[in-house]
């Protein structure tokens, strides 16, 4: 059994990625995604709160625009 039948050299090469060089550390830190689950949850909560507030404001505006006789 030849190795070429077991290993696809080209395919195996795709598993290898270039290493991060030391000169690229600063950029990597800057670009690094350090958001954690807590951040995401807080973000979601904030969005929900904002949406809720927006809905409440919209309802208040609609109530003020209704005629007196209808009331």
């Amino acid at each position, binding site marked *: *059994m030849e*190795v070429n039948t*077991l*290993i696809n*050299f080209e395919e*195996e*090469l795709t*598993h*290898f990625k*270039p*290493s*991060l*060089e*030391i*000169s*690229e*550390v600063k950029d*990597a*830190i800057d670009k*690094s995604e*350090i*958001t*954690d*689950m*807590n*951040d995401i*949850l807080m973000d979601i909560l904030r969005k929900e709160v904002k949406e809720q507030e927006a809905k409440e404001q919209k309802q208040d505006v609609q109530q003020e625009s209704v005629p007196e006789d209808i009331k």
Partner: protein
Amino acid sequence: MYNKNRCQRISNSYYNLGLEKARARNLSGAIPCLRYALQLNKHNTSARNLLGLIYYEIGEVAEALVQWVISINLQSEENDARRYLSLLRKKPGQLDINEQAIIKFNQALSYATSGNEDLAQLTLTRIVEEKPGYIKAQLLLSLLYMKNLEYQRANKSLLTILEIDKNNSLALHYMYLVKEQTGRAERERKKMADAFSHKKMQDDDVILPSTYKEYTGWQTVLNIGIGLIIGASSMLFLYLPTRTAQLNNKHNSELVAISEKLSGINNQNTLLEERNEDLQEQVNSLNEQVGSGDEIKKQQLIQYQKLFGIVQALEQKNMTLAAQLFSDLDITQIQDIPESGISIVSVLEEVSEKIRKEGYAPLVHLGDTSMAAGDYAAAISYFDMALRIKPDLVEALYKKAVAFKTSGDEGSANGIYQEIISTYPQSEYAEKSKEDRGF
């Protein structure tokens, strides 16, 4: 708030899992755990620092620096990452070496991708000489070795990787391929099949050693034969010479002992023979003494009997017989025996005195009678008896000479005549003797 605490707890759990794997040198398994931990809680400093350590260990220094810098940014106080960075800075040139290694690896990867595999292999070889712990470089190098069918070298690189990161999935996969190609996989499978059994053991099951073999009949016979030959050979070459030497030594010592004993016995025998000869001589001497003693006693007894006969003849007044007996008597043999209480010597003296006075005459008369009868021998005998009783009896001496002369023996007669002439010159028989001689 509840969600935050929950995320921290889960993050810690992943960190613990990652730490456990890192301690077991399952570095590639620890990395995702630690990443999960940081995704759940970016403030988990321990997880981040450990992740940096693992990157550093597998040669990804830049990745390690990223983690440690972020860690310090998130927690500036009481952070081990600060210590790690200061250690890196304290070693001059260490960072440059790592940087060059990373740059070269990226170049080598580029070479390999572009089909320039020889140059890639050469570059990677230099990298791993300087940094054998650079996992990515070792993996790419082993892949290139395998492509060039250099399985021994690939195996060596893979072993280095697995020493650092025991569960590196790519390294394990390559190692499997190498083993398949070199036949080691088959041998190990067989070994494992021998080592493990999936059958549940019963109480009476016996585990047979791998060396045990069931032999057929002829093999058993052959083994017994070989055993006998080996046994016989060991007897022949080991036991027998030793035994022979022992027996020889024993026999030699016995021979020496026997020889010494024999020598002693011979000496004793010689002494005994000498002693025997001495004793034999003593016996002979004693026998002679006994014989002579008997003879003496016999002679003494005869003399005593003669003396008894003399006394008896005198009592019967037969002087002639007494004188005849006395003439043959050896008076020196007659001795007193104190125990008898009787003095035989005094008897002898009394008899002697009487016969010396009266006994020679009848004997001379008998001699004359015999002369007259022509019996000169008897006459000479009677004259001798008379001379033994009375040695100075010249008459008897002269008549004896006459008897010799008459019988024809003039020599003896002349001798007696000459004795009479010289011894008794004054006697009348001296003149007669001279006449008879013709003087």
